[in-house]
């Protein structure tokens, strides 16, 4: 996996893969599943049995549109608990092989002269998750100081953006021009990994400057790009409004945005990288959004062995799923399959204060203290130490010799800050994240005396 040198004075480096793999298109599957987080006052606009068209908005009063990516009939709408402990709606659609497009989504005419606000409405209507978190309302638009279009990937085992850059260097200029106008950013940066320098030198980037980024994890993460090459903080919606002033859009999403504004069709397909730990080969697949992961595995003839792991969105920041029916969403970057021998288990050991996590943390947090505070539920102190700045890159847990689930502790603290103030009575609510169920060591601490826990505790 990572390369660990004999000399440990320098922290271990996780390099992004420098490989090219052609993108293989998969046909529309029989059944697709679309996920939707239902907010208050919003509801599904369709019922079981309703016929839907490609591009149709399936929701009423949602923050952004809930776009159907196929034409077909709604078969099932059920709730399920996501990894972030929110309740999601899963809408299953039996797909026809032929698409008929919803007429309400139209192309934006005369792209080069269009007003930014019209462009934003168009992007919002096409259902882009990449910008949706900041396009709550296209009329209220915060000042964007810097726009970064990133040809880097989010995970060492993903090559989606890299491959998009290799395949379509000629489209980059149009994407930069259009996105710069949409966001009204004063500065524009194209972030390219070092290994693609020869392609970047041939690309005309218009108003954007090119930033050559060393292909070492976590340089491809939006927060790090914003900090190193942008105007400081990444723009994200804290509950009080907007923080930071840099917007990062992946190259794949940028090209898809141009495409959908030109053609009037929303983003229907997503490229994902399939990798497995055994042969280390990376393969790219382009699938309809909502395709179950199992379809990709079947096509690649990769099998998830019993007790193995199926990981979506990368080995460092991704989540492991319990079923191969988990759908590909608009933000899924990669699928990784681990055999039982590769599966890594965290341990319920205490911090030895070695400081490896502190020295590797890209946002300079005091991880050793935060891990302990979060473990014992002291969330208000975690807030004072800036746990909300954690980008969950996973490097602290990657280097921890005690093998503590540090990222999980950070997530727990963030969730705890959201749900509890200081009252211990609300602790159970905070801990109801269920992201990992009974394997969570933080929950274990609170009922440490039960007999079953004693039996489960790791033997040294």
């Amino acid at each position, binding site marked *: *996996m*990572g390369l*660990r040198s004999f*000399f*440990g*004075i320098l922290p271990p480096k996780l390099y992004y893969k420098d490989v090219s793999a052609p993108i293989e298109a998969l046909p529309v599957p029989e059944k697709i599943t679309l996920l939707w987080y239902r907010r208050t006052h919003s509801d599904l606009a369709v019922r079981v049995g309703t016929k839907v068209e490609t591009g149709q908005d399936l929701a009423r009063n949602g923050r952004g549109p809930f776009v159907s990516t196929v034409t077909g009939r709604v078969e099932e709408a059920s709730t399920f608990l996501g990894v972030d402990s929110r309740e999601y709606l*899963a809408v299953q659609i039996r797909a026809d092989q032929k698409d008929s497009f919803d007429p309400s989504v139209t192309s934006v005419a005369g792209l080069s002269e269009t007003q930014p606000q019209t462009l934003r409405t168009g992007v919002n209507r096409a259902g882009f998750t990449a910008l949706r978190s900041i396009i709550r309302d296209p009329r*209220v638009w*915060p*000042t964007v100081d810097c726009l970064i279009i990133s040809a880097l990937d989010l995970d060492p085992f993903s090559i989606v953006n890299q491959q998009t850059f290799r395949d379509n260097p000629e489209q980059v200029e149009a994407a930069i021009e259009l996105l710069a106008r949409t966001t009204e950013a004063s500065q524009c940066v194209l972030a390219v990994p070092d290994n693609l320098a020869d392609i970047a030198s041939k690309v005309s980037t218009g108003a954007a400057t090119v930033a050559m980024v060393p292909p070492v994890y976590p340089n491809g993460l939006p927060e790090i790009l914003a900090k190193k090459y942008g105007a400081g903080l990444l723009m994200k919606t804290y*509950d*009080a*409004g*907007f*923080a930071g*002033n840099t917007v990062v859009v992946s190259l794949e999403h940028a090209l898809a945005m141009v495409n959908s504004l030109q053609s009037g069709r929303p983003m229907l397909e997503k490229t994902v990288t399939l990798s497995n730990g055994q042969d280390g080969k990376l393969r790219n697949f382009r699938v309809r959004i909502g395709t179950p992961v199992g379809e990709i595995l079947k096509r690649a003839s990769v099998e*998830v062995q*019993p*007790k*193995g*792991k*199926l*990981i979506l969105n990368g080995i460092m920041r*991704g*989540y*492991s*799923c*319990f*079923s*191969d*029916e*988990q759908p590909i969403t608009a933000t899924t970057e990669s699928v*990784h399959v681990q055999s039982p021998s590769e599966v*890594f288990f*965290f341990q319920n050991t*205490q911090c*030895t*204060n*070695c400081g*490896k996590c*502190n*020295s590797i943390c890209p946002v300079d*947090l*005091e991880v050793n*203290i935060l891990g302990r505070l979060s473990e014992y539920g002291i969330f208000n102190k975690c807030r004072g*130490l*800036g746990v*909300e700045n954690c980008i*969950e890159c*996973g490097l602290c*847990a*990657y280097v921890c*010799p005690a093998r503590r*689930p540090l990222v999980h502790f950070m*997530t727990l603290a963030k969730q705890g800050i959201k749900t509890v103030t200081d009252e211990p009575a609300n602790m159970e609510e905070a801990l109801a994240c269920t992201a*990992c*169920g009974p394997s969570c060591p933080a929950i274990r601490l609170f009922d440490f005396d039960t007999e079953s826990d004693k039996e489960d*505790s*790791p033997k*040294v």
Partner: protein
Amino acid sequence: MKALDITVSPAPHCHSGARITGVSYNFILALIPAMAMGAYYYGFDAIRVIAASIASAMIAEALIQSVLRRPITIADGSAAVSGLLLALILPASVPLYLVVVANFIGIIVAKQCFGGLGANPLNPALVGWAVIRITKAWAGYLDFDLALINYETGFILQYPLAVLKAEGPAGIAHFGLMDLFLGKQAGGIGSSAILCLLVGGIYLVLRGTIRWEIPASFLLGVVVIAGIFWLRNSSNYASPIFHILAGNVMIGAFFLSTDNATSPVNRWGMVAFGFCCGAMTVVLRAWSVYPDGVIFACLLMSLFVPLLDKMKKKQLLPPAVSPVTPQAISESAEVRSAS
């Protein structure tokens, strides 16, 4: 969704392969040359003390953990390391019951009572040594001049720092600096083997087992403060080179002060910690009743670790929680453009 029989766990899904045992075993590996040097000069007596010390430390840990019904963790090697470190700073002639008592107090009182590895505020080996040193009936065993009187090693068996304390810089003229560097000096079983400790320490730094800031700033602290004393009055105070090469400075800089649990982890905290340890060493050597001050300096500075760990840039905190309104959004935009 149909659940498969597969593993589910939080991110990240891979690991660098580092283990707690790696730290301990690297420490032991790095101390082997110093141990060999002690065994070469003091023979079976040195091996006896080292073996008894490691064994009693591990037994003490297993015993207290089984009494407290906690998982027994002697396999991680941390107890063995603290037993070994204690043995290396003791003279070869020390009676075995003292070694056992020191280890039991160190492991049980200073380490396990505070919650075990990583939670101990003081290094157990140093606490064990300090208990012997400050107990009136036992302090004599740590007087190297008396303790090593019956050995024949081929070099002057006078403890250089005791000579310095008694006679001043005039008395230490007959100690060759090269002899001190090669370990030809009276002292603890391993703590006098300066060259071996330096090699072991550099190995640990390169392996990333210890943080390089602490030994570097420790040695810098000794050189700077001893240099100030020496430049002001060279007839009363010894040169910085002598201070580095005599006594426990080398083992203190690389092995005693760098214990993970009892040292800070933030860069400037580490630098301050190491520098103050070095400075305190020289101050204690110059003005206290004890010939060497390394161990007391390390113990004292360990108490300041929580304070030193606060030497870090404050994180930028997100704004306080309030409901989202278009006004709030435009206001935050205004605040940004104003700043």
